[in-house]
């Protein structure tokens, strides 16, 4: 069961890789290249939220989808 869940999560991350990559590139990589990291704490705080939230959303979407699928199967059985 755990392996199945991780397989779903891994598949979702593979599928979300291009949007995630471009999102990180524009919101993190380009500002860092332009010297935004020199502002210190405000950028670090912003970067931490930007870095953590999208993967968390992907995991949340996977969990919601898996739960909905399990509930649907239970209903059909």
């Amino acid at each position, binding site marked *: 069961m755990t392996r199945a869940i991780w397989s779903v999560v891994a598949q979702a991350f593979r599928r979300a890789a*291009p*949007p995630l990559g*471009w*999102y990180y590139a*524009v919101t993190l990589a380009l500002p860092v290249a*332009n010297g935004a990291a020199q502002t210190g704490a405000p950028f670090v705080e*912003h970067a931490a939220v*930007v870095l953590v*939230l999208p993967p968390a*959303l992907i995991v949340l979407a996977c969990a919601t989808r898996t739960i909905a699928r399990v509930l649907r199967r239970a209903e059909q059985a």
Partner: protein
Amino acid sequence: MKTKLCVVTVVVLAVWAMKRYYANARADDLWWILTPTARLAGAITGTAFAMTPGEGYFSPERLFLIEKSCAGINFMIAAFGMVTFALLHRVGSGLSGARVLAMSLSASYSATVLVNSARIAIAMRLAAHSVAVSTLSPVQVHRVEGIVVYFGGLMLLYELVQRCDRAAAARCGQ
């Protein structure tokens, strides 16, 4: 292969140019994206936005300003690059390369106006009904909302492009 490399070069240069343009632009220079966004956000929320020279679009009744940083240019840049790379396998000649670039540009522009209007409409709603999230400040709520809407918008756009691409390939019998 050479044409694909040309398209990639154009994307990199366009991203760089858009970033430079955005850094130096005033709110008035961004009328081409702020005007449709303000109109759509106004239609969604039932709010009238008026152009305020040098500042952007302002709603006196809601005390809400759509300024330069609300233009969604970074989303447009990410969407443009993402869509072009998703369709890169379709580039075979100069004409097909130009077609892919034109499609990517129009898709990213339309998606930016739609997603950004939705983000502004949600932000206005959140500002009007102070959200009961005691641990987050209004600025943090606004930041989280922006990330959720923009990243969700990119995901939806990518799925849409993939589906259209598969449908087009099936029609052509590729």
